[in-house]
């Protein structure tokens, strides 16, 4: 299933930046750069959470291809579920801010500080990436193995992060 069949412009406004399918494909084929910020354990869910900043849109096929897993297999299903958790089910903070919360907060850093109570260090780190990132995703993983230190290492390998954006 392509990103276009699952994400329509009506509820995924960031796609509106792309006027045609060709432009999206061009975007996902460019180099992907990302930043992973571990936020520690959420006191309400007892799970680790992360902020993921990424410089381009990634569709499911590209995500699976970069992970070198085959669609329709156990690893493929695992990565498809992870793709959905990150890119479909998570809050996308940059989009939410630009579309809704910019009326309430005059800057992105105020929005994430007051709305999510992130620490000043996290607010500063994310705010510095605002212009570079296409998406800033607030990710709460369901997969148990994405907890603790292994989760950060796994996500860094998955997004091929050798340094920050």
């Amino acid at each position, binding site marked *: 299933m392509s990103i276009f069949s699952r994400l329509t412009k009506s509820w995924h406004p960031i796609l509106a930046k792309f006027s045609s399918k060709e432009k999206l494909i061009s975007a996902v084929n460019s180099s992907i750069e990302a930043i992973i910020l571990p936020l520690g354990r959420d006191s309400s869910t*007892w799970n680790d959470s992360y902020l993921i900043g990424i410089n381009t849109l990634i569709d499911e096929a590209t995500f699976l291809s*970069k*992970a*070198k*897993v*085959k669609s*329709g*297999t*156990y*690893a*493929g299903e695992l*990565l498809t579920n992870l793709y959905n958790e990150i890119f479909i089910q998570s809050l996308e903070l940059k989009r939410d801010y630009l579309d809704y919360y910019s009326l309430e907060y005059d800057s992105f850093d105020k929005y994430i500080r007051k709305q999510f109570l992130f620490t000043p260090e996290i607010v500063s780190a994310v705010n510095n990436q605002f212009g570079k990132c296409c998406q800033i995703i607030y990710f709460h993983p369901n*997969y*148990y*193995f994405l*907890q*603790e230190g*292994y989760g950060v290492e*796994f996500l860094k*390998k*998955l997004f*091929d992060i050798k340094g920050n954006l």
Partner: protein
Amino acid sequence: MKIRTGFVSNSSSTSFLIIAKEELNQANFFELMGIDTDSPIADLFEQFYQAVIQNVNIKIDFEVNDEQVPVEALFEGQRRGDISSHMLNKVKEAKHQGLKVYFGMLSSEESLIESFFCTDSFEVENEKIYFNGLECVW
């Protein structure tokens, strides 16, 4: 009355069954799982493979096994409920075809990775290997 706050949890171990035409190794395990050996996340499946290999309790090669011994007798001593009728039927088919059978348990008390796969429920098969992790249900 005492009130406990925070987590109350129990540990678990869950069974798995693997049937293979050839000796199980990391290469054919990766092929079954659908991941390339040079995948950036190969480590996850390497640890899964190691957990499986280290926790095989029963290994039967039906090419050389005594045909007179009923399949049920091969699993005597296993915890009741760990081997389902579906698993037993698969083992009977494996016996008929002279395949290799691996039966074992994963634990939720071990590593993060083993705990994850212990609690996942799946059944996967390709032309070389059948892996039943269906009993992995909490």
